[in-house]
C-alpha cells in the first residue's frame, strides 16, 4: 500500500496550509492591517461567511492487521470541511419565515481507500412557517435521546467505522436525507421526522477494521464476502421517527416512536451467498433527564422496546430478535474541570426460549438473554481549558469484552488543534461487539486548522 503515501503526504500538506481568507495574526504594520481590513471588507460583501477546517489524520496499527486493506494504517487522510449558512433577504417573506440554507461539505483525500471523495454532511433548508412550527428539509444530522455514545431511541444512522478508527466524534453521526417538522407549545413539544430513503449505519465490512463474519464463522477482513442488501426505495420503505418532549421543573421527559429498519444488517437472507438484509423495526421508548437530588450531578434513564417486525416471536435465529433496552446514566464534576460519567446499559432478548429452540445444533454460539454494558467517561481539562485529556471505557461483563478510548486534545492556538489517542479492543470471544475488533488496536493523531 506504499502508493497511498504520496497522496496522504499531499493531503497533510494541504491540511497544513491556512485558508487564504485567514487574516494575518500579527499586524503591527499598516500594510498588514490594510490587508486584514480588505479581507473583512470582502467578507462583508458576500452574503454569507465560509467557515470550516483542514485536517490531516493518521491512524497506525502497531501490530499490523493483514486482513484489512492497508496492513499498517486504518486512517490516513487529509480533509477540508467548508460550511456556510445563507439567509436570503429577498423576497421579503423568506426572512419573515426565518429561512436559512445550510451547506457543510467535506473534501477528503483518503489514503486507505486511495481515492478522493466529497461528503455532503449538510445540505438543507430551514424555515418557520408558523410561529410554533419549524421545518428543516434536506440532508441533516439528527440526534436525540440521553445516552453518551449509546443510542436507544436515536435510530438515525451512525458511522461506527469512523468512530473506531479515530476520526472526530462529529463523524459518528451519519447524515440523513430527511424532513423534520418540529412543533412547540406550552404543554409539550413534538418532532416528526420523515426519511424517504433508508440510510443504514456505515457497516464494518473488513476494509479498515477486521470483524467477525458470521457466515465464515471467524474474524475476517477484505476476504469477507457479505453483501449488505438495502431495502428497495418504495413508499413502503420510508422511515418515520417521532418524539414528544417537555420539561417538568428541571427534568426533561420524552417519549419516542420509530418505524423503519434496523440500521445494521441483522438478518441473513442467504447464508451461502453471504446475503444480509436490514430487518424491519418498530420501536417505542421514553427517557428522563435531570439533576439527582442530594448527590448533585445529572442522572438519565431511558428505555426502548425494539419490535423486530421480521421476527416478532423470536423464533428465527437468522434475524435479530425483539428486545427491550434499558439505560441508566450519571455524570458529575468531581473537582475543577474534571467530569466523571457512568452508564449501565442492558439489552434483554424477548422470548429467548423460542430462540433457543430454533437455534440449530452446532451453532457456534448462542446469545445470552441479557447483554450488559458499562461505560465510564473521565474528562480532565488542563492548561486553562486549552487541553482535554479523556478516557472513555466500554466494558461488558456478559460479553467479556471491552473498548478503551484514551484521547488527548490540545488547542495550540485558537486555530491549531492537535489530537492524539488510541482505540483499544479486547474480549474473550471473537463474535462479540468489541471482541471481534481485537486486531484493530490503533493509535491515531490528527492536526487541524480551523477557520
Amino acid at each position, binding site marked *: 500500500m506504499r502508493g497511498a503515501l504520496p497522496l496522504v503526504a499531499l493531503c497533510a500538506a494541504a491540511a497544513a496550509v491556512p485558508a487564504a481568507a485567514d487574516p494575518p495574526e500579527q499586524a503591527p504594520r499598516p500594510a498588514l492591517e490594510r490587508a486584514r481590513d480588505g479581507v473583512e471588507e470582502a467578507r462583508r460583501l458576500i452574503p454569507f461567511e465560509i467557515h470550516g477546517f483542514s485536517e490531516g489524520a493518521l491512524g497506525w496499527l502497531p501490530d499490523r492487521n493483514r486482513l484489512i486493506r492497508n496492513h499498517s494504517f486504518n486512517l490516513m487522510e487529509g480533509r477540508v470541511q467548508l460550511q456556510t449558512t445563507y439567509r436570503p433577504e429577498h423576497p421579503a417573506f423568506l426572512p419573515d419565515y426565518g429561512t436559512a440554507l445550510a451547506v457543510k461539505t467535506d473534501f477528503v483525500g483518503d489514503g486507505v481507500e486511495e481515492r478522493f471523495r466529497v461528503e455532503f454532511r449538510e445540505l438543507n433548508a430551514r424555515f418557520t412557517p408558523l410561529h410554533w412550527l419549524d421545518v428543516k428539509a434536506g440532508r441533516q444530522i439528527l440526534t436525540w435521546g440521553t445516552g453518551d455514545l449509546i443510542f436507544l431511541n436515536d435510530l438515525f444512522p451512525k458511522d461506527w467505522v469512523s468512530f473506531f478508527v479515530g476520526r472526530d*466524534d462529529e463523524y459518528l453521526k451519519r447524515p440523513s436525507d430527511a424532513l423534520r417538522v418540529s412543533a412547540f407549545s406550552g404543554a409539550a413539544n413534538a418532532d416528526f421526522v420523515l426519511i424517504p430513503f433508508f440510510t443504514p449505519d456505515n457497516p464494518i465490512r473488513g476494509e479498515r477494521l477486521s470483524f467477525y463474519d458470521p457466515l465464515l464463522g471467524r474474524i475476517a477482513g477484505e476476504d469477507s464476502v457479505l453483501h449488505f442488501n438495502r431495502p428497495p426505495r418504495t413508499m413502503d420503505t420510508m422511515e418515520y421517527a417521532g418524539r414528544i418532549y417537555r420539561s417538568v421543573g428541571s427534568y426533561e421527559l420524552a417519549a419516542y416512536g420509530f418505524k423503519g429498519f434496523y440500521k445494521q444488517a441483522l438478518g441473513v437472507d442467504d447464508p451461502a451467498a453471504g446475503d444480509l438484509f436490514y430487518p424491519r423495526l418498530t420501536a417505542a421508548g421514553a427517557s428522563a433527564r435531570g439533576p439527582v437530588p442530594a448527590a448533585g450531578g445529572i442522572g438519565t434513564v431511558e428505555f426502548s422496546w425494539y419490535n423486530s417486525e421480521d421476527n416478532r416471536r423470536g423464533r428465527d435465529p437468522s434475524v435479530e430478535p425483539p428486545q427491550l433496552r434499558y439505560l441508566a446514566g450519571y455524570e458529575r464534576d468531581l473537582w475543577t*474541570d474534571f467530569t466523571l460519567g457512568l452508564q449501565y446499559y442492558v439489552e434483554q432478548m424477548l422470548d429467548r426460549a423460542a430462540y433457543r429452540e430454533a437455534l440449530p445444533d452446532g451453532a457456534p454460539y448462542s446469545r445470552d438473554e441479557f447483554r450488559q454494558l458499562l461505560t465510564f467517561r473521565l474528562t480532565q481539562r488542563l492548561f486553562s481549558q486549552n487541553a482535554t485529556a479523556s478516557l472513555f471505557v466500554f466494558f461488558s461483563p456478559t460479553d467479556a469484552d471491552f473498548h478503551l478510548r484514551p484521547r488527548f486534545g490540545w488547542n495550540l492556538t485558537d486555530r491549531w488543534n492537535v489530537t492524539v489517542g488510541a482505540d483499544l479492543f479486547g474480549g474473550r470471544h471473537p463474535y462479540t461487539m468489541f471482541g471481534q475488533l481485537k486486531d484493530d488496536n490503533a493509535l491515531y493523531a490528527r492536526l487541524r486548522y480551523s477557520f
Partner: protein
Amino acid sequence: MMRTAAAALCILAASAAGARGEEKAPTAEEIVNRANLVAYYAGADGRAQVEMTITDGRGRTRERRMTILRRNVAEGGDQKFYVHFQRPADVRGMAYLVWKHVGRDDDRWLYQPALDLVKRIAAGDKRTSFVGSDFLYEDVSGRGPEEDVHELLRTEGEAYVIRSTPREPRGVEFARYDVWIDRATFMPMRAEYFDRAGKKYRVVEALEVREIGGHPTVVRSKANNLESGGHTVSVFSDVAYGVGLPDDIFTERYLRRAPTKWLK
C-alpha cells in the same frame, strides 16, 4: 465561557443611580444587595456582544467572541442566560443555556451543532474558569449576596469598601474578598480576592462604565490572575436592555436553531 459572559452582562447592567447623600451610610447588606441588582439585573432583559482577550503569563493571547442574552425571571432571583459562540472557530455555532437558580444548582445545557446534540451539563463548581478565561462562571452570572457575610470597612473617595467572607468556606477558593462599590451608581468597580494565607491573588476591575438605556454599564472589564500573571479583558458592545426577549428563546428549540433575530 458562559460565566464570563454572564459576569460581563451583570457588570453591564446597573440601574439605580442612587441619591448621592452623604448623610447616612447604608448598611453593608443594603449596599451589596443593591450592587447585585445594578451589576446583574439591569432591565427586565439584556443583550451584549462580548469580546474577550485572554493573555497568559507568557504573553500569548486567545480570543473569545459571543453574544449573551439574559432574561430575569425575578429581580434579584432566578435568571436565564443564552450564550452563542462566534469565536474561536472550533466552537463557532455552539450555544450554551443556563437557568440560574438562587438557592439550588443551576440547570445548564450545551448544544453541539456538528452532532445536533443537546447535552445536559452537570452544574458543578461555579468558581471555575469561564471559557478558559480569567473570569469565573460566578463573575459572569453573579454570586448570591446571601452566600457571604458583608462588612463595610470604610468609605474611600467615591466608593464604599466592603469586605465579604464566605459563610461556607469549603467549595470556594478565596478566604475573603474586598469590593469597591461606587457610591453614586452602586456599580462594583473593583474586587480583590485573598487566599487563606492572606495573600491577594486575583483582581477583577471595571475599566470603563457607560450609561446605556439609563443603566450604568461596564463596557470594559479585566480579570487579573496575580499568580500566573495572566489576565483577560472583556469588551462589551451592542449592549441593550429591555429588548423584549421572549421566554422561549431559553429553550431547546433555540439551542438547535440559533435565534438570529436576537443575536445581531
